[in-house]
């Protein structure tokens, strides 16, 4: 007997869309997300190309719909441990990590986060390390579920057994529970959609760019947080070394993409992301000089070439074809980029205040030994069994793949594949 229930692993935009399309068909969905909130990488973006509408504005309705849907059960801050069984009858063990907060009691008032003695001391993942949080934290204001989490790696009580415990005092409903234990649950589902998304490749793999060494070399996701009105700087782009507004900014494309030493594949969205970020910088301050160093501009999606043209013609963004070979830091922490200008000719050296690395993406695989092993392409992203007839069904019956878990993607393609995976999964679930 087929279980009319589905498991979706990963609560980014692809996983949310897959969950919603299943749930809207009346199918029960368990959505497992390892972070405290759903939303994935899209929740970190300031605006989205090609129409430049704000990411938070368009993603919050999805977050709210997913969080409030009667057929979707969210298991956030949870990880899939083990999968057994077969299509129609999988048994999935999920570890609900201890949040040290009773989510039934927590109202999301954030009082605990305000009084935590480590407030503003721990690098904040949602802000890509550009801001700081406490050990008690809520990742972002529109988080779903809007519940506090206590970070066991930093909380003084949990690590050292010693703390003034102001969080407990501040919590009106008494939701904080430092004794909370992780909990294992077993889910019975008929099909599984893997939407584990992507992470940025480690830019330290390109030591010539000085990421992690030079203060003012940041990633394309970090500048999203600086551009965002809900980010750590309230939407003011300030360079990390001194908080000054950069007057000259360089974007370096294909960092850890299209590169024999790291990843050969193209990460697909980074050209458009850089173009968008460059436009946003210009919108913040038209006097900022922005240069994008690229190999090829890959503006291939709907409305993308048009936005690329606007960046050049309307916003005055400079495009220089060529890879930057190295970056040096000056005493004042500004940076000198040295590289080739293929079109203009010769080696160009320029002094800039901020360098943004358009870092390529890497897959986030399921943990090894989990019980299923989905075949991958040579780029290590999950592969569909025969993508030319069915873009989402894997070699493992009952297991489907969507979003960046399958290959790097932009938002529309992730959303589409999320819906596609829901369709294929629903067919299996509705079979008699």
């Amino acid at each position: 007997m087929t279980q009319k229930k589905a498991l979706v692993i990963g609560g980014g935009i692809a996983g949310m869309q897959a969950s919603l399309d299943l749930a809207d068909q009346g199918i029960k969905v368990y959505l497992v997300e390892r972070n405290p909130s759903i939303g994935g990488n899209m929740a970190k973006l300031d605006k989205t190309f090609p129409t430049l509408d704000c990411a938070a504005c368009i993603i919050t309705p999805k977050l709210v719909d997913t969080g409030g849907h009667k057929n979707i059960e969210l298991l956030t801050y949870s990880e899939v441990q083990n999968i057994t069984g077969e299509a129609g009858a999988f048994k999935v063990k999920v570890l609900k990590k201890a949040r040290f907060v009773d989510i039934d009691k927590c109202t999301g008032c954030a009082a605990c986060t305000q009084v935590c003695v480590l407030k503003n001391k721990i690098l904040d993942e949602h802000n890509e390390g550009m801001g700081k949080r406490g050990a008690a934290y809520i990742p972002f204001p529109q988080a779903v579920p809007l519940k506090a989490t206590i970070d066991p790696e930093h909380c003084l009580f949990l690590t050292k057994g010693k703390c003034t415990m102001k969080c407990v005092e501040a919590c009106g409903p008494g939701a904080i529970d430092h004794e909370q234990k992780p909990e294992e649950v077993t889910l019975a589902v008929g099909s599984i959609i893997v939407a584990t998304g992507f992470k940025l490749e480690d830019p330290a793999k390109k030591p010539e760019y000085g990421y992690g060494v030079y203060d003012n070399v940041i990633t394309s996701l970090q500048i999203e947080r600086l551009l965002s009105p809900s980010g750590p700087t309230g939407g003011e782009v300030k360079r990390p070394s001194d908080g000054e507004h950069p007057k000259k900014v360089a974007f370096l494309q294909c960092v850890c993409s299209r590169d024999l030493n790291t990843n050969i594949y193209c990460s697909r969205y980074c050209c458009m992301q850089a173009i968008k970020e460059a436009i946003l910088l210009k919108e913040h301050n038209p006097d900022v000089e922005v240069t994008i160093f690229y190999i090829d501009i890959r503006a291939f999606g709907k409305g993308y070439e048009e936005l690329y043209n606007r960046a050049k013609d309307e916003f005055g963004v400079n495009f220089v074809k060529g890879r930057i070979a190295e970056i040096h830091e000056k005493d004042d922490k500004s940076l000198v980029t040295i590289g080739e200008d293929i079109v203009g000719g010769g080696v160009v050296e320029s002094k800039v205040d901020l360098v943004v690395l358009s870092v390529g993406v890497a897959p986030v695989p399921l943990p090894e030994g989990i019980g299923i092993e989905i075949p991958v392409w040579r780029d290590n992203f999950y592969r569909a069994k025969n993508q030319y007839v069915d873009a989402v069904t894997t070699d493992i019956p009952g297991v489907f793949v969507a979003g960046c878990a399958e290959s790097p993607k932009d938002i529309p393609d992730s959303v589409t594949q999320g819906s596609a995976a829901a369709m294929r999964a629903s067919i299996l679930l509705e079979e008699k």
Partner: protein
Amino acid sequence: MTEEELRVGVYVCHCGTNIAGVVDVDAVVEYAASLPNVVHATKNMYMCSLPAQSGIKEDIKKHSLNRVVVASCTPKMHEPTFRAAVQAGGLNPFLYEQANIREHCAWVHADQPERATEKAKDLVRMAVAKARLLSPLNPKKIAVIRSALVVGGGPAGLRSAADLASRGFEVSLIEKSHFLGGNAVRSASLPFTDQTPREAAAVLTDALEDEKNISVHTGYEAESLNGYLGNFTISLVKKPRFVKECSNCGRCIAVCPVETDNEFDYGLSMRKAIYMPYDSAYPNYPAIDMSVCKKCGECVNACAESAIDLEAEDEKLDLSVGAVVIATGAKNYTPKDGEFGWGKSDRVLSLPVLERVLDKTGPTKGRLKGKVENVVFIGCVGSRQKKTSEEEKVNEYCSRICCTESVKNAIHIKDRHPDAGVFYLFRDIRTYGRDEYLYREALEKGVVFIQFEGDVPPEVNVLKKGAKVVVSDVLSRESFEIPASHVVLATGFEPGADADKVLEVFKLNRSADGFFQEAHIKLRPLETSTEGVFIAGACQAPKNLVESIASGSAAAAKAAVPLSMGEVELDPAKAMVTEFCDGCAICIDPCLGKAITLVEYEKDGELKKTVEVNEALCKGCGVCMATCPKKGIDVRHFTLDQLQAMVDAALET
């Protein structure tokens, strides 16, 4: 309405700094609290957050609220969210009104914070004025016909149809030509696999064969669509095939005396008037091309199955379905006469023609004509064009798949002719994602990539055999002359030939690029402005096969939602006829949804007239209300009285 005391709650959203960075939220809250009937006014960092929604729910009980106003973003975004919150608090969801102080105040008046704040107060005052007059409404539910129409028999349509059928719904698949498969089956190969596009399409057509609840209608086009989500009726017209399903023995084709260009092979091969475009085409029996048939009757005599009827006529078919998926595809860009030598020599090919040429089962058995010495691909033909004058119509967009297709074919040619030079003249190499491996392979195999600037395109001078191609190389800043044995134009895509008709019939819109417009370019790429009509594949934008297949399944998922639920809710904001209507019928013609009809009735022995509204067809646009000279028709939730109250409030100071 009973004289209950009006108790309005007003909630003002900060939206982080989106609103609060410009508008003085505290001042708006304070102002709202001073408005008549407002018994509770407060603010929140994000009203859409779940705790803020719970706050509304609790306040409704605590303060006995019976009307709620949220001043935040556009109702397009969160009206459903707050209606649900109001409903969770025990009120009718239509006792809710939203004031958009983000888009209308904070964003557009960011440089004038004080005036933006004043405007926010005005909008809140207007919203409260309307809220006072709101009435509870109850959406009607209507049954959904549990079947779907899929328009277009290319890969996206095939995938959609197969998915919806396997999901258990009745599916009708229509295709205007007599054979399924679309453009994809004309390609010679696919990247990263030995599988041919035709083999892939056969997997999909086999899936259709396996499904009991699918009917395939080739030769059909949709003429009109009536109705609404859940209850569409579609009128179809069939161009006759002149051949009934048969064993495809081939005798008719053998005896047919008429030869004509086979358009499937772009005229590289000939076919008969009765023909199969290729052997394994689906459905697997011939069709007759009446534009060339001489009606000699040879085929009729040769047919042992009496399958041929040369006098067959157009047929009509009406279908009733709950949802529609449009997958009518795109067409290849045809270069203008002389554009890069096009039309001047059989050595100047376009990308789709090259696919037929390289097909080992195709018209040339996979061989390029003549000696293969230097094959020169030219990128971005018909794509990424720049206007030279205001009136000029150009394709500004990138056609997405031509780079990968060119590189794939460059590798094939290099593999078959290792000594030949293969060149790709490009503007940017857009082998995105995994296709980068193909680019890498082409480089390793010695394909030469030469970049040119968009405003200095290569020149093609056609010679007797081949052409002389001159390109200005960006890298060396030198001009090269390549003696080409073959030139391949990497032509892009344009909206399908019958796009205008499809748009008109299904009431869709075009994007600026001419392709079909989706409801939201990022988050609703499959939905359209017509509820219940979805788009898949290249009709929305150029797509490769994998992407078309994915969007086919995805559009099926969208259609599966109403079909599986079996009923849909109608928005209750529809026109309603009042006692003042005297049947003057002025409203009937302007009605955009053709929802109004004139009716007669008898009252006190007198014949009277009035109008009736079909609520499923009514879009609640209010044109009737604006036309009516006597308050005889009113749109619920936007009644004249409600709008009047808002205008009065706007003019108050």
